[in-house]
């Protein structure tokens, strides 16, 4: 039986399929189901600083403005001490998940302010999370910002968090840096233990009648794996960090590709939202089948074997490959398609 275990930013995982941040993990029973289905680890849904602050502020304001304010009504709502609000809910889920599961629980933090990043990171560590994935959702809409400004923003955040917690840190990157490779090195230098490739920024749509911006959220598709695949293949072995591939894992095929490119783990959310949590089992069964067929005894045996470092023709990931693709599609055919 092939060994599916892998190591991700120092954490021993029993399988290379990790559940990425998504709303399913808001419920403990789903986290338990993910473990039962074989997930190697679970990245919890994201804790959004502004949302937490808003919720906490509103609850506190409501509670304070309605408690002990009138002779006739001493209060209106149960004391917030009796239930968790704001980040408390999140921390409670970490605690419960840690109590009830044996797989690593990775928290996901989407901060805004320096204080927000560090405070919540410390709370998350204290609640027992095995690692922290940070999600810097930053659109440089300010046109005066230089690429260096943007990069510094990322590295500053990582440094700040690194100095306040000890658990491993993964950074969910976006693919829009001028030099993804260099940025990866910078992030590692700042203290990142892993990179998660890539963050899918939501791209809004317009309602042309109401003249309003519409939030647009779509599931990822297998076809979207190419960009992360490229960069994992390029970064593998070059930057001393763990690599996680996210986006587009809907079956074992995509997971295998990522592992071949050099990912320590593949992450999936859309597939679980579409097909349900037991889908994990199917993906892992197919992975096992593949490994038996190949045959690979362990993940390490084939991890990174298709990376730029290990393939016979490293230019396949570079400009030459691009030219070749263009050449092959001149006549309306896609590269690799049947002639």
């Amino acid at each position, binding site marked *: 039986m092939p060994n599916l275990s892998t190591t991700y930013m120092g954490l021993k995982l029993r399988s290379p399929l990790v559940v990425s941040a998504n709303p399913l993990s808001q419920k403990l029973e789903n986290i338990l189901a993910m473990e039962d289905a074989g997930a190697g680890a679970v990245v919890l849904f994201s804790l959004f600083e502004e949302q937490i602050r808003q919720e906490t502020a509103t609850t506190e304001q*409501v509670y*304070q403005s309605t408690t002990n304010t009138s002779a*006739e009504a*001493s209060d209106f709502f149960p004391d917030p001490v*009796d239930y968790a609000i704001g980040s408390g809910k999140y921390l409670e889920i970490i605690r419960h998940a840690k109590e009830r599961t044996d797989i690593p629980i990775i928290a996901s933090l989407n901060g805004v302010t320096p204080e927000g990043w560090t405070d919540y990171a410390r709370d998350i560590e204290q609640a027992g999370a095995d690692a922290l994935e940070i999600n810097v959702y930053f659109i440089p809409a300010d046109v005066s910002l230089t690429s260096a400004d943007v990069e510094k923003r990322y590295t500053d955040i990582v440094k700040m968090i690194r100095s306040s917690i000890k658990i491993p840190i993964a950074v969910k990157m976006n693919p829009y840096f001028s030099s993804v490779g260099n940025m990866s090195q910078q992030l590692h230098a700042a203290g990142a233990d892993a990179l998660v490739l890539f963050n899918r920024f939501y791209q809004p749509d317009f309602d042309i009648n109401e003249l309003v911006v519409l939030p647009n959220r779509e599931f990822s598709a297998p076809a979207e794996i190419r960009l992360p695949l490229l960069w994992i293949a390029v970064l593998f072995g070059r930057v001393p960090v763990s690599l996680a591939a996210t986006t587009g894992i809907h079956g074992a095929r995509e997971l295998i590709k990522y592992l071949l490119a050099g990912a320590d783990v593949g992450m999936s959310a859309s597939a679980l939202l579409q097909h349900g949590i037991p889908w994990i089992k199917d993906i892992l069964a197919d992975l096992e089948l593949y490994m038996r067929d190949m045959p690979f005894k362990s993940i390490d045996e084939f991890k990174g074997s298709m990376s730029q470092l290990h393939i016979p023709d490293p230019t396949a990931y570079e400009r030459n490959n691009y030219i070749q693709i263009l050449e092959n599609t001149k006549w309306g055919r896609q590269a690799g398609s049947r002639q």
Partner: protein
Amino acid sequence: MRPDKQKAVTLDGNEAAVYVAYRVNEVCAIYPITPSSAMAEFADEWSAKDIKNIWGNVPEVIEMQSEAGAAGTVHGALQTGSLTTTFTASQGLMLMLPNMYKIAGELTPTVFHVAARSLAAQGLSIFGDHQDVMAARTTGFGLLASASVQEAHDMALIAQATTLRSRIPFIHFFDGFRTSHEVNKIDFLSDQQIREMIDDELVFDHRNRALNPDKPFIRGTAQNPDVYFQGRETVNAFYATVPSILKREMERFRDLTGREYAPVRYYGAPDTERIIVIMGSGVETAAETAAFLAQNGDKTGVVQITLYRPFPADDFISAFPSTTKSIAVLDRTKEPGASGEPLYQDVMVTFAEAAAKGQVRSMPQIVGGRYGLSSKEFTPAMVKAVFDNLNAETPKNHFTVGIIDDVGLTSLSVDYGFRLDESDWTQALFFGLGADGTVGANKNSIKIIGENTDLFAQGYFVYDSKKSGAKTVSHLRFAKNPIKAPYLITSADFIACHQFNFVEKEEMLKWAKPGATFLLNSPYGVEEVWERLPLPVQQIILDKKIRLFVIDAADVARKTGMAGRINTIMQTCFFALSGVLPMAEAIAEIKKSIEKTYFKRGLSVIEKNFNAVDQTLENLFEVKTPTKTTAKERMTSIISDEAPEFVRSVTQMMIAGRGDDIPVSALPVDGTYPNGTSKWEKRNVSSRVAVWEPDICIQCGNCSFVCPHSVIRAKFFHKDYLDDAPEGFKSAPINARGFPETKYSLQVYLEDCTGCNLCYEVCPVDERTGAKRRAINLAEKPEGLEAEREKIGYFEKLPQNEKPEVDFSTVHGVQFLEPLFEFSGACAGCGETPYIKVLTQLFGDRLLVANATGCSSIYGGNLPTTPWTSNSAGQGPAWSNSLFEDNAEFGLGMRLTADKQLSTAHQLLNILRPQLDDQLVDELTNAPQHLESEIKAQRERVNQLKERLGQIDGQDAKHLLSLADQLVHRSVWLIGGDGWAYDIGSGGLDHALASGRNVNVLVLDTEVYSNTGGQMSKATPTAASAKFAAAGKRVGKKDLALQAISYGNIYVAQVAMGANPQQTVLALREAEAYDGPSLILAYSHCIAHGIDMEKGLNQQKLAVACGYWPLIRYNPVLRKNDQNPFVLDSPKPVIRLKDYAYNELRYKVLTQTVPKEAEKLMRLAQEIVDLRWKTYEEMAGFGASSFQPIF
């Protein structure tokens, strides 16, 4: 619920009583009423948490539609063998009376726990006295009076044991607020002790007497003259045994706990001559004072009545020492016209009978007096006055103490400087805002000290009656011995002022002891603060050698990330300065409490709070006070010199907190007060106020329309008026074509603005320009207000736009109408008051309002100042509140008067026709009064008539003159909340609507009992939590609209001004125009929803957008014209219910407390919304014949 093993705890009287009541009962049927609500709420909370009684089962707790309903349910549960209780007060007890006769007549054991409260007479009062329990003394219930928090705890158990053994039902009562709300340290009963007091054999007996189909009998027969009388006498023996049974239970209790009680108890030396007889919380004050006086050689004592019914005559007589010469009987009640108050009468009769029987050698001199009505303070000084009266040659009888009765001359003179020895106590006063957490922090301090040290602690909290910017005063005492002082602190060692502006208005330092500590939360630093203090404050600081400390708590909060929360900071200052606990110990305890509070919120929040505590000490400074005063400013004047005499002389004193000094002669004899007084009380509750930007304003009127406090007014006027406008007076050309010479002005009454921000939220001039500025924004209030007052004065002098000049069928037009409801004490951002205000704008000059008790009667009618006002012609809403349960009937009565007197007037017009002008008579009788111009014409005709009638002799002319005002159509409105309309007043409302009479009902639907703290009503929606629906309401909200529509002839509308203000105006106008009953259900966002009140209007919008609150109008006039009378005014739902609901804590809290239930309930609620929408949509598509035809 507190752990059983805890021995000494700090809690209030309500919790102390219900803790036992819950333990020894199986069923609680209740209805919320101040000040007893908390007992029922605790019971409900414990039941929801599956906390068990002493038999190991969880009591069933049910909220009923009224106290009458609760009493009926209690009766039923008792008759079928459950140990059953209820908790109530005041009017609630009145509604229970009929059942109480039944329960007692059937010898059914039960204990009703009552937080005794005043009855509504010349005015309602939520505060404490014995009027309610005295009104129940004839029911056959035993009456057991507790005098303290400890007694409320103990007597709840003794009462239960006694009722089970004697079969006589009991009212166990304690003084509302003074005991029900006083926090004190008590010895806690253990489960074991409770268990041992209750004899299970008696419980089995109770069950054996129950209705049971397996051994049927009949109880509750109708009896005839032959046997009823004898039947009534059968119970005498049971009553006769009560005192001895009670004594036995008290002895058992003593053996278990060491605490000793008696039906009648004497405090004093064996040779005492002057004795006060008293019951309730006044006992401690009287006994402590008697003891103090006795130390100085006075022969003073006190007899405490614990068992009042059945009156324990033998115990009573034997309680008195043989040396007794004179007795003062103090009643905390009033029985107008009686030969004396009830306790006095009982004492007189008992002594007379004893003297007749030779039990006593001679009748002592006995006088009676009244004290403490409506929680009027009862102090040692008053007790001394009562003893002094007994010393007089001819002691005053039927006296009053604690007031100045300059009419009946009943009052005793009191030396208010008299105090007991208070040297053992540390006394602290805290002045805070309701919303700044001062009371919460103080309750926490009491707990820290009371439950973690050997010290005793007492806390009592006084609130003002406004709902916005409400002031709180916390009275805290700490001592090495039990604190028996149920009265306010008047000589404080420590005074804290948590809001700097209070120091400018409130003479708080008059309560300071010489050498006291004064802690001031001040934005001005240690160097500057002295200069900022008003002259009288400086003077008193110097005179009393008060040590002044300052802290800028807001700054510390800001710097430590506490988001403006100052309560922990101020609490730390208290511990640092008061020396009640060693500092390190106090800090450790505060931090322990912080950890407990914020445990679930993560380390960072805890650390922030810890940091704030640590930073506090570094930012607390003592001010070196100069030796002389330096300030010039006096205290801020409260009332303008322009106010009417009554306001300046009487109202002003109430506002200034000196209402106790108002003599009887200054008050109206029948509860009739001048209206429109709120305008004289400039409360300045918000430092941020609305500011108008004329340049970008489109003059839509939205801000004025939604303003809950009527502080935004609009007028249009000729530009020439601006010639003498004060500098800075804002105006703009009117936004209408063809009026080049007309100006528009929007005036903000900034001293009345609560800063709620609804105006900003509703302003359509938005940030498309890139700026967040709108046409109305909140900004800091300017420091000097004189210039602003001048502008407001000028605005008021501009001619008021008349109704015929404006198109008030639109929101835009309504802004120009004068609101006759202004500056109420409602919450900032209130969702109810805008509807009332618009109602007064539309019909205020001819409104008759019947207002159900609740929020709207409190912000509408609570003294000192009230918001219903008059226009410049002196016309305005005539308003009254009868009760909670009877408002529909009360309003219907108003309609009947209007109709009857109108018909009499018509009749008299015809009789007097020969002496009047035919045309005038015809027009007065028949002229239409639909349009404002027609009303105006009718008013002119009435004036003509009055003039003519003055010249005609005879009774008919005089009669017609007295009724002439009725010739102008009166608009009768019945206003109240959902608690009234859906629950307690439901039957009456149904009947009033079904009467076909022209009454208009406005239901301000907040979907809970807002005034008493958010208890569930039948308007509470599915999936929302409320008190008594802690796990979420499972059944749907009653569809009152459909219920009314089913009659066919009722105009019905459902409105939400935040979603469609235009539809609100339309509905109000159609309802008023309809000559028949009408019902308007108005969505009213509320603090009880757990929302950011600034977003209240947006929530209304979302409620409509998700289909939860469809906007509808059902107009019977359309049906009469063969059209579909049902109009659906809101579009199809575009969002899901949860997108609206989860913005509100009332829904969201369930996702935290019972997440799975919450999910299920939300699905159910969505289905209900979908179904309701479908029903309405179908109805809107029906033909006219699908609806009931009308006459």
